């Protein structure tokens, strides 16, 4: 049977196992939308802004490990998708973003709603295609999914001129052969010689640390990581992107490291004699000043992307390969090795970390303590959410102080539960990404921990949540200011709050939620926080917006001292340095 380009596209997406498309129609995409209408297998989710579509697809991808799919129209539809593409690119999230383009004969004529999407998106995609022949659609879709999901994952853009999907032009649908690209063959298995070297280095170390990042989650290596540390019993820290890949409740877990990492995690990194980096990329929010990074440590770096290795910090033992396969090989080698780790030295090292934790570790039970202040501390909000959701929710977040508090105080014991924009730091990510997660897991609790700044960047998606019945819970940590900006202004600009407050212009979020057809609660008193959250989470079938007014003056600590600091140089509280 012959198919139009639009129908081919839908069939090709179906063959990739796509269940949801997040999108927004428009002129150049209308043939495609007609093809969406004419089929039943894939559900289209109409967002209220294309940024929401990309973040929702991104949240879906992070939670499931499957690629997220987006369809937008040309011009403004395409450019609105750019922030979401950049977000996914920075965090290596598999997305396939299909953009309608003006008809082939109009390209380059500055026609209505024309934007060079391939050009605009070039630096923030793993790859991109412009479809030139309708018959190519099945093969391009197939290749795009292959590229988005293999190696170091990332977003792929497919730009389709309108004439390519015209209903009157029909072609035979040729099922594409298995993708084989001479120019793209990501490495899967690590070099055995490197694995041997790594095993030897680990087993000869006395102060080793495992530093695991988002790559370990993307590479589905949580089981391997736990198995490895069953043998080694050494301290583990996760990056912001890696939280959950190693269980937070394990005795060897030190919490997050880096800019707002725990005291013990940062101290351990600085004083380690060996760092085993797994799917992490030594970004500037981790290392602080690179020349002062972990002066005594030998570095083993496992990554599927060779360009991530020795980019910032030179790796003594680079291992290129899939994280899962590399850890399997490493475990095997360690078990086989005649050298045994010096358990006495390691136990001394573990004691040192316990001592650091006791000295300046985070207080995870602030909410239980009596305090003279009636003000709610933002950390308590996260702790209460953790308590009420029994630590088993999918938590999405936006960007700023609330994001760091969520990362510090919600203990993630499973991978893919913590969904946030780590690399790009995109405000507005939280709500739409929560929609994607909720669609993937309708029976799971999905919480968006956000702030009154971030939530307003994609607040329009409250309408989408009503249309598709997505009862996510939104916890708005409201400090009536752009908290992280304000913190920096406190610390570096003598408290001159340039454009970080709203005066009296904040909306009534309860009314706003109600206007969108949802439920809203406002909390201003400490003793009401727990009960209100319990009430909110008991409303299973409703989106509830809980607006919690918190202490405006609170800062996120610890915080690495920069510029020129090392990882052991931290602000521990206001005015107090290590």
């Amino acid at each position, binding site marked *: 049977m012959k198919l139009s380009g639009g129908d081919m596209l839908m069939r090709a997406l179906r063959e990739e196992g796509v269940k949801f498309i997040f999108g927004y129609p428009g002129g150049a995409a209308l043939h495609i939308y007609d093809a969406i209408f004419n089929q039943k297998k894939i559900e289209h989710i109409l967002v209220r802004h294309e940024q929401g579509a990309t973040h929702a697809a991104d949240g879906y991808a992070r939670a499931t490990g499957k690629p997220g799919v987006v369809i937008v129209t040309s011009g403004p539809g395409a450019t609105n998708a750019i922030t979401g593409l950049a977000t996914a690119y920075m965090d290596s999230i598999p997305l396939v973003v299909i953009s309608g383009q003006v008809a082939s004969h109009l390209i380059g004529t500055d026609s209505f709603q024309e934007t060079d999407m391939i050009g605009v998106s070039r630096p923030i995609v793993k*790859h991109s295609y412009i479809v030139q022949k309708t018959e190519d659609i099945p093969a391009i879709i197939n290749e795009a999914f292959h590229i988005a999901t293999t190696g170091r994952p990332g977003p792929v853009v497919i730009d389709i001129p309108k004439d390519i999907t015209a209903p009157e032009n029909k072609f035979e649908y040729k099922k594409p052969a298995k993708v084989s690209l*001479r120019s793209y063959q990501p490495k899967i298995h690590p070099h055995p010689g490197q694995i041997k070297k790594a095993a030897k280095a680990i087993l000869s170390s006395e102060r080793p640390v495992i530093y695991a990042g988002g790559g370990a989650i993307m590479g589905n290596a949580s089981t391997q990581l736990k198995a490895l540390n069953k043998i080694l019993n050494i301290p583990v820290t996760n990056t912001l992107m890696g939280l959950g890949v190693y269980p937070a409740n394990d005795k060897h877990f030190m919490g997050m490291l880096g800019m707002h990492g725990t005291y013990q995690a940062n101290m351990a990194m600085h004083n380690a004699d060996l760092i085993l980096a797994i799917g992490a990329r030594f970004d500037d929010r981790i290392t602080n000043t690179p020349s002062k990074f972990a002066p005594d440590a030998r570095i083993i770096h496992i990554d599927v992307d060779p360009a991530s290795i020795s980019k910032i910090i030179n790796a003594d033992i680079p291992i290129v390969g899939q994280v899962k396969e590399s850890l399997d090989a490493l475990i095997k080698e360690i078990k086989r090795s005649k050298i045994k780790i010096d358990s006495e030295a390691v136990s001394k090292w573990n004691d040192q970390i316990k001592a650091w934790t006791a000295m300046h570790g985070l207080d995870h039970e602030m909410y239980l303590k009596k305090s003279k202040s009636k003000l709610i501390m933002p950390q308590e909000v996260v702790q209460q959410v953790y308590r009420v959701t029994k630590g088993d929710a999918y938590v999405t977040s936006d960007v700023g102080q609330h994001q760091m508090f969520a990362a510090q105080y919600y203990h993630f014991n499973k991978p893919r539960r913590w969904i946030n924009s780590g690399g790009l730091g995109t405000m507005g990510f939280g709500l739409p990404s929560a929609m994607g997660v909720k669609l993937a897991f309708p029976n799971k609790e999905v919480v968006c921990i956000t702030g009154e700044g971030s939530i307003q960047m994609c607040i329009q998606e409250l309408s989408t949540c009503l249309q598709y019945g997505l009862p996510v819970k939104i916890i708005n940590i409201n400090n009536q200011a752009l908290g992280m900006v304000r913190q920096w202004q406190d610390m570096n600009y003598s408290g001159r709050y340039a454009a970080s407050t709203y005066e009296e212009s904040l909306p009534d979020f309860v009314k706003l939620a109600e206007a969108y057809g949802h439920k809203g609660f406002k909390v201003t008193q400490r003793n009401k926080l727990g009960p209100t959250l319990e009430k909110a989470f008991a409303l299973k079938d409703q989106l509830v917006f809980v607006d919690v007014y918190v202490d405006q003056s609170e800062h996120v600590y610890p915080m690495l001292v920069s510029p020129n600091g090392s990882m052991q140089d931290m602000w521990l509280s206001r005015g107090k340095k290590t």
Partner: protein
Amino acid sequence: MKRVLAMLVENKPGALARVVGLFHQRGYNIESLNVAPVDDGSYSRLTVTTRGTESAVEQIMKQINKLIDIIKVADLTEGEHHELELALIKIAKVNDLTSIKKIIKSMNGKVLKNDESACVISVTGTSIDINNLLKVLKKKKIIETVRSGSIGLHESKKTLTI
């Protein structure tokens, strides 16, 4: 330090833009660029000259390799290699052709044209040779110059082929 990078790139829409864009995105400069299809025409060979420390160049090469359309990349400066550039130079009419021919002889130089309007010569050589020649010709008032950018090839058995 100057580096000569050679790469094989799929002849697909936008492939060259990805390579060129990458240099800018990662904060590196392209000093010269040469590109043309080779073999069956399904891919092109690019030669890029750039400057950078060893670790910077290693990072550029890794990033280039990450581009989906890149088949292979090599740093020719790592070993013995041939580097050649073609230049066309236009100067004012030359009365004494023998002296010019003498100057350009070692660079496979040819006088393509010499009349009242101008004298056009072609030369091939390393970038340094051509730089030097241009310095010499400066006295004769250069009207226009065009250079192909370096192309390069491993000298030894080492190859960059599919």
